[in-house]
């Protein structure tokens, strides 16, 4: 019974992965004849001299350091505030909409919202006495715009998990806390939050993994610009490998690096946050 699944896994995942590693050591370029020769680690050395690759790493790190924490805070805040609120079920469904909207549709929608002349965001800023912002035309505003879209799209994911976790907290512990005089903020800070910690860590990890491969928002809104201000690692790999010239060898090296960095980061975080123990999966 399990054999077809194994075969499928090997064919669809392991083989392409190994093939990608192999290609990363070649100069394969589909736009040119006679490429595909083995060139050793040349592609990897080139990455460290590639200004565009380094710039893409910078923005990806910014997303991890700014967008992910904000998603976590907003998601946690929403899940806490929504509990026992009037219209909870309706609001819960509404909050999940951004996550369900396809990224292409969401990105296109935000592109219109951020439009310099016709966009409602600049219109409302104008009503408040602010000058219109060239959202996609300036380095900082473009980065902020991409982060806003990311936060809008993925806060509901954090909310969904933490809201479910809050509902599932053991009632007896909460009741014991209440008997001891804890309520409201104290109950949340000293009882609920510590109980949520394992789930928060896992959610954080999932979001980091996801942000490391952020692509669609950038593709639909800024296309990595202005300059390379909003190019993420995945988007850059896409441009090199697919969009601008089919440089499969170099693009594969970029992807291999991304996999390695992700693996190291996840492993380190898992150890630092002690996720195995928090989830009761390890005996340490």
């Amino acid at each position, binding site marked *: 019974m399990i054999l077809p699944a194994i075969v499928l896994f090997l064919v669809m995942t392991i083989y392409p992965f190994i093939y990608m590693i192999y290609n990363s050591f070649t100069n394969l370029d*589909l*736009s*040119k*004849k006679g490429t595909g020769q083995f060139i050793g680690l040349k592609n990897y050395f080139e990455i460290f001299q590639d200004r*565009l690759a380094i710039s893409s790493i910078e923005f990806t790190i910014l997303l991890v350091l700014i967008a992910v924490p904000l998603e976590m805070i907003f998601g946690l805040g929403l899940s806490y505030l929504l509990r026992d609120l009037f219209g909870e079920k309706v609001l819960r469904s509404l909050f999940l909409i951004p996550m369900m909207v396809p990224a292409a549709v969401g990105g296109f929608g935000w592109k219109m919202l951020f*439009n*310099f*002349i*016709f966009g409602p965001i600049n219109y409302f800023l104008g009503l408040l006495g602010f000058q219109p912002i*060239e*959202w*996609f*035309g*300036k*380095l900082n505003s*473009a980065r902020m715009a991409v982060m806003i879209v990311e936060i809008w799209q993925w806060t509901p994911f954090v909310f969904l998990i933490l809201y479910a976790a809050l509902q599932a907290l053991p009632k007896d512990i909460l009741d014991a806390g209440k008997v001891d005089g804890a309520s409201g903020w104290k109950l949340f800070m000293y009882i609920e939050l510590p109980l949520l910690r394992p789930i928060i860590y896992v959610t954080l990890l999932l979001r980091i993994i996801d942000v490391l491969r952020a692509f669609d928002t950038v593709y639909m809104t*800024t*296309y*990595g*610009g*202005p*300059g*390379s*201000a909003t*190019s993420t690692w995945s988007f850059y790999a896409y*441009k090199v490998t*697919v*969009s*601008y*010239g*089919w*440089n499969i060898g170099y693009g594969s090296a970029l992807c291999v690096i991304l996999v390695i960095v992700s693996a190291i980061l996840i492993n380190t975080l898992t150890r630092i946050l002690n996720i195995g123990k928090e989830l009761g999966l390890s005996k340490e």
Partner: protein
Amino acid sequence: MRSRLLVVLVLAVLSALAFAEVTISVVACSDNADSLKWLAQEFMKKNPDIKVDVTTLSWEVLYPRILADISAKSGAFDVFNWDVMTAGAVSQGCVDLFEFIKQNPDLVDPEYDMDDLLPLAKNLGIWDGKLVGFPYFNNTMLFYYRKDLFENPKHKEEFEKMFGRPLRVPTTWAEAVDVARYFTKSFNKNSPTQYGIALMFPTTHTMFYMYLIFFGPYRRSVEGITRFGPVDLDYGDYFTSDRKPAFASDLGLKAFEDMKALMPYSPDPLGSDYGETLEYFAKGIVAMVPQWTNPYLQFKSSPALQPAEEKIGIAPMPGRSVAGNWALGINKFISQEKQRAAFKFIQFATSKWADKEKLIRFAIAPVRKSTLADVEAQKAIPWVKVLPSIYADETFRPRIPEEPRLEDISNINFAKILSGELPLTIDTLNKLAAEWEKVLGK
């Protein structure tokens, strides 16, 4: 009885095979898709044994899709509608039509008339001596302006008071700066439009052709030709005749200075692309816009630009125009039968009749001399009259296989220069040229 039945059966199978429908699959860019779909319908009426399916892809997706098909030799598409600047890369998977015509004289329409094709349009489809595509869309950039505002006596008088010269459609970018300033509200409170000009300098392939409309006047000037040599058909205006980056020079810097000088009079130039600038002109936000030929129909139907003949003016680019041609080629890795059917279709789609029809119905700029000279065509689309002068000296991008990579590096660096993130110095351009040479393997 049995043998008779067998004969009938064999005859039935043979006749079914003879009248079997061949399906050819065409992959097209969205700019060309509507016209190709219409032509496919017309073609199928005349050729009921051939079915034509047209698949539409966006510009960004089309090129990698064609390359993937060619590299895998999968034959997913039989006819490619390709941007001529990808000629070097696409040619490896396209049938040489010169050779195909020699080998299949029975398919050639005697009225096709190769000599009627406009020379540059035809030559851009030739790579390494092979004709890898029939020219389909002779797209070029035009300068659209608000005719009513330029002809308004009040604005003429005010402009002359302000700048000491008459208001006219700019013929150089330096002239365009004053006009753009006049039509920008924040610099002239009496301006009828919010901004003077809509510019598109985003970090996409748009940037690469927009630079050429500013660099072109320098590259094609007497000084430019003397210093850089004539323009090479494969390497285009970005290069010198000995195939070195020509933009890494004082003339290249001047082009950037011209671009920067206009930016204050444009709404969000670095964040606006094709769609945004179309809207800005169509909604009456700006007085001028450099745009391709085909948006004309959108402008013509815009409520803010009515009556269109009084409000939409069309002129040659103040600098130089840039070619944005498209061709139709046949996949090398498909069966002979499909190649023959595909040839019939691309020959039909680029015939004299089709050239005129697609111009009148879809504003697809013509590839034939006869269409340019056609009175009905000139009446239908006003820019047809200005095309001959534009086609005579328009610039074009490189067609070498490395073009997309060069384009990407340049788009990013150009945007950084225009935003001030990189200094506008010869050193910056030299560094970019060094990156180009690395890509070119020099």
